[in-house]
């Protein structure tokens, strides 16, 4: 994937390693203590922490710019509109979309996928097929399941191997059936960390005449993403997993497809004119943004993009890759621990189980040591089923995590085994 940061004023030389102590000082919450211990936050796949610049951007909006957007003639409304639209164009540059019209502000990945299912899906006919993969988050399963029920379409699933890698031969076989209209795939699995070869898979789908949605929720915090290079028709992600606020995310869609879609939600802001006889819908992207949006969130997401664009995403990726490798090795050395998801290409996530100890109990004991991880099925029950387990413990990393924190994690896992083993 090519790196493109056309809004990276302070971009460092790409050979330089990430300055972890410096980035840590940008995140105020990392100084918190939990249960008498320094916080070790390893639940970044659920939501990442926020740098002070993001916190300040949202608070500055409420303190000095707060007004509704796209409607007032007064000063504040213009200021707020400008800030919101500047954020949109920053995000455009960051994912290298060609047009700001192609970026729709949504609540998050979930809403983005539902939007596509409701609009693109409206043209499905009985017997059409939708392809997803065996390692999707529920938000990239259920909207398609519901759509299939409504349109009498058929949901097909790309299987995976025991390492948690998708089986591309099976994928090609599904496409060869000639009925696939939509392919929806995660870029990176939240439960296992597998990086899927989405560029190749998109090209294959296009050859078979299908449109492609990529769920990038777990990709954008970890690597540079170029939507034109991927050639995905839709790319969805959430602000809160990439150091931005909750309640805001992006659906990128190719202009020519977005233009052909029926409206999603309707109401204010998405129209040009309304009479009781006829409504003329607004232009892109506003046509898909009914109602007052999360203005502070959008501005905060712009600030998160500024933050990431000022770093070298390759250095971020390398640092996190080293964290995953270290955690994997150290956890595997603990008797009884088994890593779930051992794909060759992984980002940000180490999922594991401990013999005879339920992940939930591990989570409680780690918490007592100040270590925050997620335990459970990670909204990916079919993935768990594939591995024959109900749940895992998952440590997930961000750019501010350190090797010392991994030592604390591993010590705490040993502590859990001592208490419960």
């Amino acid at each position: 994937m090519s790196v493109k940061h056309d809004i990276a004023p302070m971009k460092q030389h790409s050979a330089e390693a990430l300055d972890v102590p410096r980035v840590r000082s940008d995140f105020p919450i990392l100084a918190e203590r939990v249960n008498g211990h320094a916080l070790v936050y390893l639940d970044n796949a659920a939501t990442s922490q926020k740098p002070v610049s993001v916190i300040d951007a949202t608070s500055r909006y409420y303190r000095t710019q707060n007004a509704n957007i796209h409607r007032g003639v007064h000063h504040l409304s213009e200021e707020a509109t400008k800030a919101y639209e500047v954020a949109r164009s920053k995000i455009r540059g960051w994912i290298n979309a060609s047009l700001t019209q192609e970026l729709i502000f949504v609540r998050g990945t979930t809403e983005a996928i539902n939007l596509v299912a409701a609009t693109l899906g409206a043209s499905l006919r009985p017997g059409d097929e939708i392809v997803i993969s065996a390692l999707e988050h529920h938000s990239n399963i259920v909207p398609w399941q519901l759509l299939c029920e409504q349109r009498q379409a058929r949901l097909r699933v790309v299987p995976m191997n025991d390492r948690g890698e998708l089986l591309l031969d099976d994928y090609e076989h599904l496409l060869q059936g000639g009925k696939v209209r939509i392919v929806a795939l995660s870029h990176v699995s939240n439960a296992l960390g597998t990086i899927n070869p989405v560029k190749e898979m998109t090209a294959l789908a296009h050859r078979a005449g299908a449109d492609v949605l990529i769920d990038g929720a777990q990709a954008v915090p970890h690597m540079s993403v170029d939507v034109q290079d991927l050639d995905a028709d839709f790319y969805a992600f959430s602000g809160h997993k990439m150091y931005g606020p909750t309640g805001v995310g992006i659906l990128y869609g190719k202009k020519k497809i977005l233009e052909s879609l029926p409206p999603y939600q309707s109401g204010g802001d998405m129209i040009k004119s309304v009479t009781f006889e006829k409504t003329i819908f607004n232009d892109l992207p506003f046509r898909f943004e009914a109602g007052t949006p999360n203005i502070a969130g959008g501005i905060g997401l712009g600030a998160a993009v500024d933050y990431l664009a000022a770093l070298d995403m390759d250095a971020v990726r390398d640092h996190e890759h080293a964290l995953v490798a270290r955690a994997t090795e150290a956890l595997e050395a603990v008797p009884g621990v088994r890593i779930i998801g051992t794909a060759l290409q992984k980002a940000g996530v180490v999922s594991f189980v401990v013999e005879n100890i339920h992940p939930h109990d591990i989570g409680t004991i780690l918490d007592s040591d100040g270590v925050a991880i997620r335990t459970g099925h990670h909204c990916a029950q079919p993935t768990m089923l594939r591995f024959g387990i109900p749940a895992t413990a998952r440590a997930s990393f961000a750019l501010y995590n350190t090797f010392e924190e991994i030592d604390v994690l591993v010590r705490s896992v040993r502590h859990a085994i001592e208490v419960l083993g």
Partner: protein
Amino acid sequence: MSDLRELYQETILDHNKSPRNFRKMEHADRAVDGYNPLCGDHYTVYLKFKGDFIEDISFEGAGCAISKASASVMSSLLIGKTKAEAQAMFERFHRLVTGALNPGEEAEEFGKLAVFGGVSEFPARVKCASLAWHTLHAGLVSNEAVVSTE
């Protein structure tokens, strides 16, 4: 955070490792599935009645130490009790793990249930402790075949 030992008391660890009445029951009068969708815990609680009495209880399934020990202790306490006694115990248990004891009520009076007193200090684990009890409750008072803590 309170002491982990308050939560993971010896009795709980013991019941987790060797759960009592952990088996499928053929010819049960009621078999109710209880789910905790948050962590994926799932148990089936089997009940056999003799008139107003609970003649037998067993359970099977998978979950964390707290939920398994709770199901195990529950089953061993309730065999031979009346449905009304079981209901009353369900309510006491609920008060205990949510830290909502009645005025004058002391955790020490709870007998074998008292080991779950520590759960009230761990709000995230209350649902684990009560899963089997909620499932039992459904088996006693309703015709539901599935309950969920959410």
